[in-house]
């Protein structure tokens, strides 16, 4: 074969064009590689992404992440990571990503800077000059703001907003034409859900005013960080111009009584009664996409939507029923209670993880304690811990955002001839042997409401007193009570007695924006 012979000959000579070009390129690449090795590393590591950059962070955001372009030397990063003002937390690593988990909910109304001025990547020699692009990031916590129903002068009956972080005067959100009865903030504080009756309607004898539900924008539009822990959790968020009102539910022949907004802001439960037929009475469910529908269940009393936004805790008969809110479950048949807690006549609050609830036992089955109300912590495993006995009544209870402390408003019966109750505020650390600590005593017969701030640093209280027991002459005082004296106490979850501050504003039901 002549072909084979020629090929062998040319092979021996190494003179084929491919040989020449390939060998030349190989030599060139060898030189280039050597050159690159000699020139060394010119691209230091840097922070690629900071999950809270320019975001408004709330108490529900527990951790931020810093993603680096290279695997880092953890010690060098941890030694140089600075947050100002100080924000205690723990560092953990997943590959080239650092996660910083806060020890306690972030204090509201602050601006923070995160800096990593220098760090070393995993490949750098210890004596090498550090090649790291210094990092500086910024974020804010949400504003410290409260809303309340004004009680005096031009504010009377109007929904008011007072933003402590912006140190501005309280501003009305609703017009004087409405008498606001009750309200609740949406999860990001962008809107308030409220019920109101018209303050200028005609003769109340012929047509009793019916409460309607509205949402009003607070003008706050915090940009929340993406939730890395619960990435599937979405909350209702529709910021608008301050004071812009959206109708939610009209009366349509019904009286709208109490209501509750779910923690994700997407579901509202309203207790309604037909004005023409009082037997037509019960909870209705309103979701963002669906028209209001009655929830087919036994009529009941006080209610609360669970932290999962999917179940309703409602006082029915002699106990508390847990009812599903899912439309599929109740569309076909009556919503069967998921659970029934026969002993407990009231639910005040549920921990954020849904594993425990603060409930009241009226002790109707115990003849010796018949006139004592007992606050009980009930866990989802069915464990019951008695926390506090009150000879008067238990007015409200609220968990601290870390679920380690329960704040209770209750009252004692005063030993006198006429029936007089003295309200007090107590804190109960939820340890193995919970002991109530009295934080504040109020004047006898005062009507008190309480709300713990979302960061757990303070409580706001409204104390209403009337000199002659006539509600028309009631005067309201608003009190801001810091809940801790030192950061150590806060991190350890130890309640302490502090000095209350009396605020200049006066209003009912002061409530922190989340």
């Amino acid at each position, binding site marked *: 074969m*002549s072909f*084979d012979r020629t*090929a062998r000959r040319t092979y021996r000579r190494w003179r084929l*064009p491919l040989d020449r070009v390939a060998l030349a390129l*190989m030599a060139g690449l060898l030189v280039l590689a050597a050159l690159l090795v000699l020139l*060394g590393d010119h691209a230091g590591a840097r922070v690629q992404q900071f999950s809270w950059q320019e975001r408004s962070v709330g108490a529900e955001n527990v951790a931020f992440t810093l993603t680096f372009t290279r695997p880092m030397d953890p010690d060098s990063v941890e030694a140089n990571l600075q947050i100002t003002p100080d924000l205690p937390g723990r560092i953990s690593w997943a590959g080239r990503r650092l996660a910083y988990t806060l020890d306690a909910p972030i204090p509201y109304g602050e601006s923070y800077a995160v800096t990593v001025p220098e760090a070393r990547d*995993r490949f750098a020699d210890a004596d090498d000059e550090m090649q790291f692009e210094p990092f500086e990031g910024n974020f804010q916590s949400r504003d410290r703001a409260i809303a309340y129903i004004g009680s005096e002068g031009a504010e009377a009956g109007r929904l008011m907003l007072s933003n402590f972080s912006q140190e501005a005067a309280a501003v009305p959100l609703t017009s004087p034409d409405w008498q606001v009865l009750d309200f609740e903030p949406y999860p990001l504080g962008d809107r308030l859900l409220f019920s109101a009756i018209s303050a200028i309607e005609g003769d109340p004898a012929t047509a009793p005013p019916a409460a309607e539900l509205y949402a009003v924008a607070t003008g706050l539009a915090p940009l929340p960080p993406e939730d890395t822990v619960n990435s599937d959790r979405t909350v209702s968020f529709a910021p608008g111009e301050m004071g812009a009102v959206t109708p939610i539910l009209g009366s349509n022949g019904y009286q709208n009584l109490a209501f509750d907004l779910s923690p994700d802001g997407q579901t509202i439960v309203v207790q309604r009664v037909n004005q023409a037929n009082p037997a037509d009475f019960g909870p209705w469910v309103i979701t963002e996409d669906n028209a209001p529908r009655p929830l087919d269940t036994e009529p009941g009393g006080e209610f609360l939507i669970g932290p999962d936004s999917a179940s309703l805790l409602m006082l029915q008969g002699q106990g508390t029923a847990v009812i599903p809110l899912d439309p599929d479950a109740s569309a076909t048949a009556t919503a069967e209670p998921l659970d029934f807690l026969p002993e407990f006549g009231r639910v005040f609050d549920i921990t954020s993880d849904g594993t425990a609830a603060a409930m009241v036992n009226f002790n109707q089955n115990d003849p010796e304690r018949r006139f004592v109300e007992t606050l009980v912590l009930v866990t989802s495993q069915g464990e019951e811990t008695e926390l506090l006995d009150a000879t008067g009544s238990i007015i409200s209870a609220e968990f601290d955002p870390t679920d380690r402390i329960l704040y209770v408003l209750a009252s004692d019966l005063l030993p006198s001839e006429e029936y007089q109750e003295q309200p007090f505020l107590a804190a109960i650390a939820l340890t193995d042997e919970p002991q109530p600590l009295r934080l504040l005593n109020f004047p006898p017969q005062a009507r008190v409401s309480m709300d713990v701030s979302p960061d757990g640093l303070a409580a706001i209280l409204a104390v209403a007193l009337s000199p002659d027991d006539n509600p028309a002459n009631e005067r309201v005082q608003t009190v801001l009570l810091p809940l801790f004296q030192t950061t150590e106490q806060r991190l350890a979850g130890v309640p302490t007695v502090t000095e209350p501050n009396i605020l200049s504003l006066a209003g009912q039901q002061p409530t922190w924006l989340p």
Partner: protein
Amino acid sequence: MSQLNQGLTLFLSLLVEATPFLLLGVAFSSLLAVLVDERKLIAYTPKNPVLAAISGSLFGCLFPVCECGNVPVARRLLMQGAPSALAIGFLLAAPTVNPIVFWATWVAFRDQPAMVFWRVGLTILISVTIACVFSVQKDMRPFLQPAIARYLPNPDPKPEPALVGSGSSLLSGGDFLLQSTGTLKLDQPMMATLGATTALPQQSWHDKAQAVLEMMLQEFRELGAVLVFGSAIAATVQVAIPREWILALGQGPITSILAMMLLAWVVSICSTVDSFFALSFSSLFTSGSILAFLVFGPMIDLKNISLLLTTFKGRAVMYLFVLAAQLTFVLTLAVNSYTSW
């Protein structure tokens, strides 16, 4: 005993992973041989070697094959008379530049989407460069195995009257398909057939399907055996040199690239799943070294060197291997040293 077990597991897993793709590649190759008229193929392929190399490296989008399936297709392209730049561009780029690998890399490196673009970009750059180097050789026959080379037309027809008038075609070896219209020599280059006759005998669809099937079986038998051999070598090497040793080599910015390239070569993992494998190293190694793994692995690995040797002579495989390795090293080192993403 445990080493034998481990080796057997590795061997079988490599085989199970690669066989479907080899089958796919063989199917594409057979379809190409029987159904595509290579006069059209030649007419549509660009004459400029750079353009041919680029179009070859983008061919993978049409034939999504991994590094086992690309060899039969590239071989067929060469046998059909396609420019060598096109075949080499396809050979090196197709396992990476295809929609399945895009998607897998995107899913694996969701936090570093730039990885997908660097991977594809560097693969095309390296493939086109090597394809251009190979295009300087007008007559590829000295670099191909004789079994392949004899099907190639002579680009310079003067010195070799070769096939025309070489007597009865039945005297030469190869595969034949007996049919009513005469004898069709299956592995006869189409160009040669065209040189002898003016038109292909009209075949029915049935005949064509049978031809494709027979050709698939024959190619699969041949390359499957080689794949078994290649997988056995790769499994043996992996048992002999544990991965930990290789990874322990790479603690610096330069050695980590070399370690990941060596790892890619030894583990011979299929390009459709290698990004998930590489992801597990992304917390320990630089982006450049992960990129080196993702670019180099699909081009040449221990398992497919045996497949390459069925087509190319050792010298050509050596050029492919060394050039791909050097280009990968230089480019990913530059990425490591001058970029941060």
